Structure formats: structure tokens, C-alpha cells
């Protein structure tokens, strides 16, 4: 670590070592069949769990019998279908065994999807296209993970689309990503890891990312065009990739789009209409015939009723709207936790997740002029005149001032910049629609010397691409400490 150019990371590496050495004694936790052990671990502690006997799963991913898993900053549950005995070490903020779970209904949901996948295989059509909606903290991401894990157990290859900018999937918060999954999910790291330059103990996932740069999809006018773009990419992939096509996709959404305004769910409508590009032509030039055909509504009765009224009885392309109970294990995650969670995700992007697989980012010193930063225009942050997605052409045409070009300033220190695949000379729509190549972190801006120091994930020249600065996620002042 000390050999890292320009970085003094000795403190960072010493910290996890202290934490892991604190807990050596373990206790045994027996679980009856169909119960789950729910726990919350803070970011400063580590909880280790090992499966002694029986079978157990963490959000659908089975625990390996000979592996000790450690959790940090996690609120989760170990569920068992057959009963098990766990060996638990470390300290949890709260832990209890729950006998009433919603796993049976989630498993039913999975098997219902499996039936459709079998049919899709036989007829070589697209498998089930699932949209998961529900209020905040209703377990949407957990359900998506369970459905994904179960699909993987069946040797499927689902494409998971994360449209929730508050939590990154295989990326940092503020991004919208999609990835096809195969093999298994990681138990400890949630969705796993995007590619790194070395071997990974869990197969890496290959995400496609766009940068949204705001926390709430209801604000700004970037969300819908990005959803449109994402839908095009995913649908194109499905057209090309047979394994993913037969499995279908699962879309995770932010809770905020499920609140609705007077029973109108603008963004849900947009997602449904964009992920059903019946009339669009995808990148590979084929006519798209894939659309969302299942909506799982978690918890909210009202949302379920509104959506089933709207989509359930359409004469063409009917959508199955199914309500699933919210798990009793869903806990409210306060803003402090979410902030910590976000900073953790950013840290993990640069430094990796655990002590054994530390990543080595590089710090570069560059001229201020080397960075072309596009900041989301303030005026576009709240734009009441923005209209729903039925007139997309307007959206594309009317977006002259999506970004404003800014020079690095000391006010931007500690913020995250998205490295797009677009050139700084491209029109702003192209920059907006460009996928993200990665993220860099502004360590220091010296305005007098006209120099910036940035943290980049991999060595080499800083890409001369357009950089996008959003207001979300917030600055991470202590990334290097």
C-alpha cells in the first residue's frame, strides 16, 4: 500500500485489521425450517456467519458450507428452508429470529417466472420482463436479489436493471446500471464487483452504467432520457443474447417513483413504455418486441390498485400486476445510514471491499485545463414544465442546457466525477446519453497553480472524455482517510 504513488494509505489499511481481530468467540444460532435470522450490523463492526449444518441463504444466495462470511454495515437476513445451525461471531446492532417471513411468496414469484422462462425457451421468445415497484424500504432490492439468485440457481442469466440512483448496483450511487448475471451472486458484497484487473473470488459482473447525478428521479429532466437509453441498450442485449433473452430482465426502481401524484405515476409509466419498445428500433437495427409484462408491487395496496387498474386490463400487451407482501424484516434506513452506505460504495469502487482484495487506485496530478467538467445545470434541477414521456422528441430537442461547462474549483474538492464515453466536443445530449466509463475523485484543486490531483481507478492517462459532475452523491470528505 505504501508503494502507491502519491497516496498515504497506511491509516486506511490499518483500520480493518483492528476490527477483524476484535471478535474471536462465536456463538451458535439454530434456525428451524422456514425461519430467518435478521441482523443489523453497523459500519464499524463486523459480524461473521458460518453455516454449520443444514442449508441457509442470504437473499436467495446459498451460503457455502465451508466459508465464513463477514458482514459490515449490513441489514440483512439469513433464511433457511430446511433448518440450519449458524455459527455467529461478532456483534450485531440488533438480531432476532423471525418465524413469519414472506419467502414463500417470493419463491412462488420466482417459480411463476420460471414457468414463463421455460415457455420462452421452447418458443425462443423473451422471458418474463419484471418491474419491481414499491415505497421506500419495502424490500424492492431484496426481492430483486432473491429473484436473481434463484434464477441463477436455475442456471438462468437474468439481466438486472437498477434504476434507483440512491443505491448503486456494481457501481457508485447516482448511477443507473444494468448487468447480466451468471454464476452466483456474492453474499457479502451485495451484487458483486465490476471487473478488476486481477482474479476475483466471485465472478465479476459486467455493468453498463449511466450517470444520473441526482438522488431523486422526480427531480431534473435527466431521468427519463437515461431510462430510455438504458431500455434501448437492455433490449438490444436481449435481442442478441439468447441466454438473457430467455431469462428476461428484472428492473429495480427507487421508492420515490411509487409515491405518485394523484394516482399518476409518471416515471413508472415512462419505464413501462420505454422498456416496451414495440415501435422503437434498437441499436442493432432490429425491431424490438419486448416489453415489461409483469409488475411486482411490494407492500402498497394503493399502488397495486392504481397500477392494476391501469395495466391489468389493457386489451393489448396486458401486464400482470401482482402484489407481494412487504417482509417484516424491512427496516427503515435513516439518512445517516444511507449516507454511510453511499460513502462505502464509493470507497469500494476505488479500494475494493475487503482486506484481502484491496484495490489500488492511482492518483494523478493534471492541469486544470485537462479536465472538461460538465455540471448539471442548476436551472434544470427543478423544471415544472417538463412533460411526461409520451412526447420524447421534445425531451431530446429541448435540452440545450442540460449541463454547464465549469472549471475545477476548490469547491468541487472531494466530489465524484463520472467519466463518460463521450468527447467534450460532443453535443450535450450525446454526453447525457453516453454510458459511463468509470469514476474519478477530485482530491485537491489548486487554483493558484492550476493543478488538480485526482484519484483514478486504474493507471494511465486520464481519459480526455467529458466528465460529468452531479450533486449526488454528496462529497466524500474522508475517502482517503
Amino acid at each position, binding site marked *: 500500500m505504501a508503494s502507491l504513488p502519491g497516496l498515504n494509505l497506511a491509516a486506511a489499511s490499518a483500520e480493518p485489521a483492528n476490527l477483524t481481530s476484535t471478535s474471536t468467540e462465536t456463538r451458535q444460532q439454530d434456525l428451524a425450517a422456514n425461519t430467518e435470522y435478521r441482523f443489523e450490523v453497523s459500519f464499524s463492526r463486523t459480524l461473521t456467519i458460518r453455516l454449520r449444518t443444514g442449508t441457509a441463504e442470504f437473499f436467495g444466495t446459498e451460503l457455502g458450507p465451508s466459508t465464513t462470511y463477514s458482514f459490515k454495515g449490513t441489514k440483512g437476513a439469513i433464511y433457511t428452508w430446511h433448518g440450519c445451525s449458524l455459527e455467529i461471531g461478532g456483534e450485531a446492532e440488533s438480531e432476532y429470529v423471525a418465524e413469519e417471513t414472506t419467502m414463500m411468496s417470493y419463491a412462488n414469484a420466482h417459480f411463476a417466472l420460471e414457468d414463463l422462462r421455460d415457455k420462452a425457451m421452447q418458443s425462443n421468445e423473451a422471458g418474463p420482463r419484471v418491474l419491481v415497484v414499491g415505497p421506500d424500504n419495502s424490500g424492492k432490492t431484496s426481492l430483486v436479489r432473491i429473484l436473481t439468485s434463484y434464477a441463477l440457481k436455475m442456471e438462468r442469466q437474468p439481466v438486472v436493471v437498477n434504476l434507483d440512483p440512491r443505491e448503486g448496483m456494481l457501481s457508485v450511487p447516482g448511477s443507473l446500471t444494468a448487468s447480466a448475471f451468471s454464476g452466483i451472486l456474492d453474499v457479502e458484497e451485495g451484487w458483486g464487483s465490476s471487473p478488476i484487473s486481477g482474479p476475483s473470488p466471485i465472478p465479476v459482473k459486467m455493468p*453498463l452504467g449511466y450517470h444520473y447525478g441526482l438522488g431523486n428521479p422526480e427531480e431534473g429532466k435527466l431521468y427519463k432520457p437515461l431510462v430510455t437509453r438504458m431500455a434501448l441498450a437492455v433490449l438490444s442485449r436481449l435481442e442478441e443474447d439468447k441466454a438473457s433473452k430467455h431469462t428476461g430482465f428484472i428492473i429495480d426502481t427507487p421508492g420515490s417513483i411509487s409515491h405518485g401524484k394523484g394516482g399518476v405515476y409518471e416515471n413508472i409509466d415512462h419505464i413501462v413504455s420505454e422498456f416496451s419498445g414495440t415501435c422503437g428500433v434498437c441499436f442493432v437495427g432490429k425491431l424490438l418486441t419486448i416489453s415489461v409484462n409483469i409488475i411486482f408491487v411490494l407492500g402498497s395496496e394503493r399502488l397495486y390498485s392504481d397500477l392494476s387498474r391501469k395495466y391489468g386490463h389493457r386489451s393489448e400487451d396486458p401486464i400482470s400486476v401482482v402484489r407481494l407482501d412487504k417482509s417484516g424484516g424491512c427496516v427503515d434506513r435513516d439518512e445517516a445510514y444511507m449516507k454511510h452506505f453511499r460513502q462505502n460504495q464509493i470507497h469500494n469502487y476505488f479500494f475494493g471491499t475487503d482486506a484481502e482484495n484491496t484495490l489500488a487506485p492511482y492518483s494523478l496530478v493534471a492541469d486544470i485545463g485537462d479536465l472538461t467538467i460538465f455540471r448539471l445545470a442548476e436551472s434544470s434541477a427543478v423544471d415544472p414544465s417538463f412533460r411526461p414521456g409520451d412526447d420524447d422528441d421534445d425531451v431530446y430537442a429541448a435540452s440545450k442546457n442540460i449541463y454547464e461547462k465549469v472549471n475545477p474549483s476548490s469547491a468541487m474538492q472531494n466530489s465524484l466525477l463520472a467519466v463518460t464515453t463521450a468527447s467534450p466536443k460532443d453535443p450535450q445530449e450525446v454526453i447525457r446519453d453516453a454510458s459511463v466509463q468509470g469514476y474519478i475523485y477530485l482530491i485537491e484543486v489548486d487554483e493558484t497553480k492550476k493543478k488538480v490531483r485526482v484519484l483514478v481507478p486504474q493507471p494511465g492517462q486520464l481519459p480526455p472524455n467529458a466528465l460529468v459532475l452531479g450533486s449526488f452523491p454528496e462529497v466524500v470528505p474522508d475517502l482517503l482517510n
Partner: protein
Amino acid sequence: MSNASAEVAADFRDALQDLKINSRPEISNLTIIAKENTEHAQAISHELENHIRTTRPEWKLPALYVLDSIVKNVGTPYTVFLGRNLYRTFMDAYMVMDPANRRAMDGLLKTWKQPVPESMDTNPVFSPEVTRDIENALIKIRTVTVQQQAMAQRTPHGLPPRPASNPMASGAWRNTPTPPQGGPRHAAPNDPRVRHNFPTPNNYGQLPVATPPSQVPTPQPPVTSIDLESLKADLAKLIASTRGAWEATPTDLALAQKLKALMDLQTVLNTQTIPPQQLQAIRTQIQALSPPPPPVQTYVPPIATTPQPFIPSPQQAAPPSLPPASGGFNLAQLLAQARPPVAQTPTPTQPTLSLADLLRRVSSPGQMSSTPVAAAPFPPPPHFPPVPQPVATPTPAPAPTLTPTTNLAQLLAQMTKSGSAPPPQVPQLPQLPTQPPAGSSAPGATDWLLNALKGVPQMATTGVLPQSTPTASTPMTRQASGMTAVPNSVELTTASMKQPRFHLIARLYGAKPNICATCGRRFENSAEGKEKKARHMDWHFRVKDPDATKRGIHRSWYISEKEWIEYREVDESAPDTANSAKAAAVTLKKDPKEQYVHVPADAARDAPCPICLEKFDSNLKWHTDANDFVWMDAVNVNGKVYHATCWDEYSKGAGIPAPSTPDPVLGKRKADIGTPVSGKKVRAY
């Protein structure tokens, strides 16, 4: 679970095979295996019994010492499993032993009647019922033997190590009408067990931590808490074995029903107070359902106190095993009676209070005191809504045969009065054969249970297990869902999501019993599945790179939209050839420097490029897209790896795209090719 059991059992069996002398470390080792795998106690017990029965007579004693060590050091659940067959296990071995070993066995038996030494538990190792029958039999044998020898009768009996054929031995035998108490070398006090070294595994949670291991269910007062506990334990085991069978046959809906019924029973037992008589009946039923069919006379608790006429008396079932002590006693005859007692045991279930009836009584609150236990560990019995079931047409029963008591198929058949069937040859099977009672459903929990338990068992008569149909080529789960599409399909509605369908869970677990211990990924138990797992494990090994952090691993940039659309996930368990072929196909168009092949897994890794004869070591690189170590600037042509640049030049120069075999070109150097240079260590990644 069944396969895990099978694996553990196989290990245990292998270890047992090597046990030929009374070796303390080996016995301790086996005890530890048994102790650490109490969840597979049934399979292990079965393996042990089997071994004692089948091994050569001179190796039986060490195996019996293993049994002894396990029951004393581990206790439950082994005492329960082994106790059930102990009579037969012990007596079969005793019959073929020579006198010295018999004395050792006498000593062993004596210790079983006592509490475990140095333990606080005052219960004997095995319950008195178990040991008493053995003792009675031994006394009879001795009496007969003494009588025979006193009359100088030589009764040939065809058992090779018969002591009577050995004058010395019979002399010794005659001199010890009562077994020596601890004199022999192998007697219990000197036996190779370290009792206090093993902490008590508290497997069933009903014992305080300090309680010594040998908790034997004492059935003496018909209803005591310990009785209930042992009943629960039995039930738990039955559930476990049924679940094992069911996991092996995930498509077997009927078995799933039976499992559910048993689990309901467990819930009832756990949550409600049940009168003694019903407990007895349940116990009888469970024992009847429990595999494998043993001569359980001694295990069935005495029921003299219960007025219920329908409960079979164990004594009635027992008598044939003890011949009259009159002269002309034939050991072989005794053996014959002792060995297959199943066939002669009268059926205990005169269509009486069936399990389902019981359950119905229990769950109808008016009929009995169904006070929920305060700290019930389980929720009240769940109500199972009627699930649409396939109505299987029962195949006509073959010729009725004598019905052994412990065969589930028979029991169920009797309940339905649909005829009986010969038992499948169970003794070799570690668990219940999966008789699928494909019952039709009826509304209501108890009716459902009733139906689940009384289904049509005729399939069992063929002895063919339903799970013997999976094919190796297609994933079992998919095939399964195809075969049983109608009953297993889950309607996509809100109401349908709430119906419990536990039988489907097997598609996530049992369908792929071969689990990777590291990451939990599961594979099928087919040849293909094993290959996949092997490749998967290879991959685990490859990515475990201790030097990874030193080499400064970093996050890579994400790929672009277009690349992502064209990207295909790489499954580490997929065949390598497909990978490299695909990789080669993709990279062929690129600059030769960018071409790569996956590093071969075998000795071929040391083979140099056939053209320039340089090795590929310097080209080694971690390739992100391939998620594997690769050789850059390499190309695989007809199974041989060349430097891509060499091959490029060669094929250009030769003016031919690709010769059918490159060997003629390189003929003279062939000796060098593919021969690993001696002394050079093959690097493992």
C-alpha cells in the same frame, strides 16, 4: 441433505473398512466423525450396522467398539438409531464370534446397562428394554449351549467359527457359564474410549448443556417429558429422511405432501398437549413409518398401561425371536428367527387410530385439551389451503403378500384398503424408499393430511424409485418442470403467491445436490454436473492468488454500450474448449498481439510455441474479459498453442490458411514439443 448424508456415510464406511484391529486412534477418529455429523446420524448408524453385519467375524468386535464408543461419547441421536436395531446387530455378531470375543461382547453389553462412566446422567447407555432382550437371548443361548455340551451332543449348525467345533474353545466356554466380568482384554474398562474428552453435543436442545451424552429415551411411564422428547426426535428424524427422499425426487408431489403432513404433526406435537394414549398411537405410527424396518420389539414402549386396544403390543410382536430353551436347540434356527423377523411380525396396525385420525382429533379443539404450550417454538399449525393436485390413477396392486409392520407402503395400503404390496427390499437403503402417495386433495387441514398419508403406494411395489429418471443432458429442473408442468405451475396472481408450495423448493436445492463448499453454488449429480463442478473448483483454485494484492490490482473501466450489448457472460463452469474457441473466434480478426488463449490446465502449459520454441510464460496475463489467466499473443490452432505473431507470419509465409496438421512442418522438432522440461516446476495459478 440425502446426498450429504450419503457422502458422510460413504466416508464413514471407508474409514470403517480399514478398522481391523482394536485401534484406539481409529475408533476415536470414527467417533469424531460420528460426533461431527450428528445430522447424518441415521446414515452413519445404518452404515455401522451394515458393516458389523457384513464384515468378517474377526473384524466385528472392533466395529462393535466403534458403536460402543459412539453411543457413549456422542449419545443421542445415535442411541436411538442404533438402539432400534441393536438386538439384531448384537446377536448376529454374537452368533459368529469365537468365545473370547463373545466374552468381550458380554462385557460390552454389561456396560450398556449402566450409565456412562464419569457422566452425571444416571440413565443407562441403552434403555433397559433394548439390553434386556439381548440379555434374555444370551441367557438362553448359554443355557442351551451348556445343556448341549453337558449331554455331549454335537449339533452341526454350519456356522464356521462355532465354538463347539473347537474342543479348546468349548472347554473354555463350559468353564464360564456366566460371562467373565471385565476380565478379558477387550472388556469395557480397558476399552479404547476417552469418554470425558468429548463434550456433549446438545443436538436436540432438550438437554441442559452439562448433561452427559447418553440420553436414551426412557419410555417407562408412557408419557413423560422425555418420552415426548424422544418422540419428537423420532419424528424429526423421520421428517429428515422423508425430506431427503423428497429432495431426491423433487417432482414427487405426493412425497411432499407426506412431508408436509409430518411437519404438521410436528407442529401439533410442539404446540399442543396431547393425551398419553394419542401420544402412544402417534409413536407407534411414527415407528411404523420410520426406516429401515428393524425388529423393534424392544424399542416400542410398553403400553400395558394404556387401555387402547388398537395399539400393538410389542411383546406380541416379539416372541418368535426367543426359542424355547428345550433341547435340540439349533443356533441356525435362532439366527433365522432373529434375522428376518420382519416377515413374521404381525402387523400392528389393525385399521385403527391412524395418524391422520389422530391429527384430526388433535386439531379439532372440542375433542380434547389443545392448550397451546406457552413457549411454543413453532407457530400454530398452519392452515394449508387446498392445492390443486394431480389425481394419479392408482395402478392395480399386485398379488397381496404378507405385510411387514414397518413398511410405509403397507401401512398406507391398509389404510386405504386398496390391497397390499410386497415390501421393497429396504434393508440396504439408508432411507425410506420414496413411495409417492399421490393422493387427491380435499379441503381442510386434517382431511388434507389424511389424504396425504393414505395415498396410493403401489408404485413402491416395483422397487423403482421415481427419481431414477433424470437425464444427464438436460438440467433436471427444467425437465422436471416440463414433466409436471400442470401441477407445478404457479399462477401469476396476488392470491397465488401466498400459497405455500414447499415441494417446489426442492428445485432450488435437491435438484442439484452437489454443492460447492466454498461459494454455495450447486451442481447436478450427473456426469455433466460433476464436470461442471470440477471446472468450477479449478476456477476457485486459479483465482485464489496470494500475490494478487502485491501486484496492485485495480478497478477497470466499464465497457461501452456497444461492447456491453455484445458481451456474453462467461460461466466459469462452462467447458473450456467452448471458451477458447469462442475467444479465438472473436480475437482472430484483431491484431495478433491482442489474441489470447486461456492458459491450459494441464502439462500442456509447459509446451513451448511449436514455431519459435519459446515458452509462453512471459505472455501470462490476467484477462479481465475472459476472467481468467491467459497467454497473450497466442492462438490455438488444431489443439496446439502458437504465438499469434509466429502463426501469423507462418501462415502468411506458407501462403496457406491453416494446414490440417501442423506437425509435418515441425516434424524434426517434435521430440521437444509437449515434453515438459524436467526440473522445471509447473506453476499453479
